[in-house]
């Protein structure tokens, strides 16, 4: 049943992607676009196969940093959103600042992350975390602010404290919007990791996807650049899928969003 469900969800995008790839391949061939400007999908596929060891290792490094950053932003985001919801003064004072943080371009602060956290995994994960934090905070806060007042009254009647009400009512109630935030955060975490790698990732044999992109770009190896970009997108897709799966498992029994 799950397989059938998956297939039903998967076939339209698969058809679209295959169609787009075919179109791309033909367009590159037809207009004789040089490889260094836009390689064809087949050429990218070949780069992926030729460079598989390096790309696989790079994907692993980027995946680790993305995963750590995402788990960090999920944890910090849910806690921060909860604190903001429980403490009205903090909500009024801190939330606008959090919004401001969202506006600061990552590229501008990425070099500072290197100074603060050091090169490699710490600064890259921090970058992934910072970029993906806001949607989780916003999702958590929105959820907690929209808890049904009637249910809140039930908790009040039975003498539940704020923390207890948060745990047994607020959090479960907010799960759908927390997961909306997490789904957005999943894609952002990959972007954050790649940008972090541009400024703080290792190079040479220890290069993650961001490092492969910079170095291949300097060598005019455009197919490798695209191969790395494809893998980065794939990472985002996998993370999104995992988050979606967890959300579905948690919500499917009672929430419309998971049906």
């Amino acid at each position, binding site marked *: 049943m799950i397989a059938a469900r998956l297939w039903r969800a998967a076939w339209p995008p698969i058809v679209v992607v295959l169609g787009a790839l075919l179109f791309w391949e033909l367009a590159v061939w037809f207009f004789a676009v040089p490889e260094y400007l836009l390689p064809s999908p087949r050429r990218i596929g070949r780069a992926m196969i030729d460079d598989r060891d390096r790309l696989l290792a790079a994907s692993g490094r980027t995946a680790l940093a993305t995963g750590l950053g995402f788990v960090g932003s999920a944890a910090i985001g849910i806690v921060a959103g909860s604190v903001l919801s429980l403490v009205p003064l903090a909500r009024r004072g801190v939330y606008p600042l959090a919004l401001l943080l969202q506006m600061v371009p990552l590229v501008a602060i990425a070099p500072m992350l290197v100074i603060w956290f050091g090169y490699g995994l710490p600064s890259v994960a921090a970058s992934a975390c910072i970029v993906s934090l806001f949607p989780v905070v916003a999702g958590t806060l929105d959820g907690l602010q929209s808890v049904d007042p009637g249910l809140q009254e039930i908790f009040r*009647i*039975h003498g539940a404290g704020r923390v207890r009400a948060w745990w047994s009512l607020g959090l479960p109630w907010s799960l759908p919007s927390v997961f909306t935030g997490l789904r957005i955060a999943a894609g952002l975490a990959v972007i954050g990791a790649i940008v972090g790698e541009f400024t703080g990732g290792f190079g040479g044999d220890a290069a993650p996807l961001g490092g492969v992109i910079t170095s291949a770009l300097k060598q005019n190896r455009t197919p490798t650049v695209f191969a790395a970009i494809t893998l980065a997108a794939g990472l985002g897709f996998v993370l999104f899928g995992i988050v979606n799966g967890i959300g579905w498992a948690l919500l499917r029994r009672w929430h419309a969003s998971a049906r």
Partner: protein
Amino acid sequence: MSGPVAEVRDLRRTFRGERGEVEAVGGVDLQLSPGTITVLIGPTGCGKSTVLRIIGGLDAPTSGEVVRDPTVPIGFCFQEPRLLPWRSVRRNVALPLELAGRSRTEALAAADARLAMVGLSDAADRLPAQLSGGMRMRAAVARALVSNPRLLLLDEPFGALDEVTRFRLDEELAAIVRGTGITVLLVTHSISEAVFLGDEVVVMSPRPARIIERFQIPFPTRDAALRGDPEFAVMQTRVLDVLRQGLEATP
């Protein structure tokens, strides 16, 4: 017999809204005698729910006096079932006990007993969304009863249900509550429900709510057979007449 379980004297409540002050309750005196069912009936929006909420401690009066022993456990039931959608019926019913710090086992055992009382044992493991409206209300009643309240406050609990379901739930509620010594305050706008359940039916005027008349309802038994009793119809007509007068007295 001891004194009333709860009592209000000259209760007034004014709300401050966007269009200035609105008087919802304009001087109400009420005594809830132990083991009786008191019914507040009046037109929609007259402020009768406000009286119930003040007695339950969910709202505070603008003036007047509320006398109630704060240690007396209260059970609440609202027009909406107010169940947690992610919890099974059993765990929803057990919620008040869990929040009171009782062990999970104890709470679930008590919940099962109340579910048996309202005839929901078979649905204990289902989620609220998998129940009919009437079953959800039964679960809400079971939850209101789970901590052995001595005072049960019912705020139009069956107002959103169809008439047949409503009649059946009224009959079941009568069977559960009468003779257990629980004191009940029921707010409703259904005359038949009021007369069927109440020992005393208090008719209220449109806003601001004031008491127009009190009826003592003499029927010794409250079961389905009562609905065919000519006296039952007469009683309903009398209540209806008073309600009409109340409505016509105000523009």
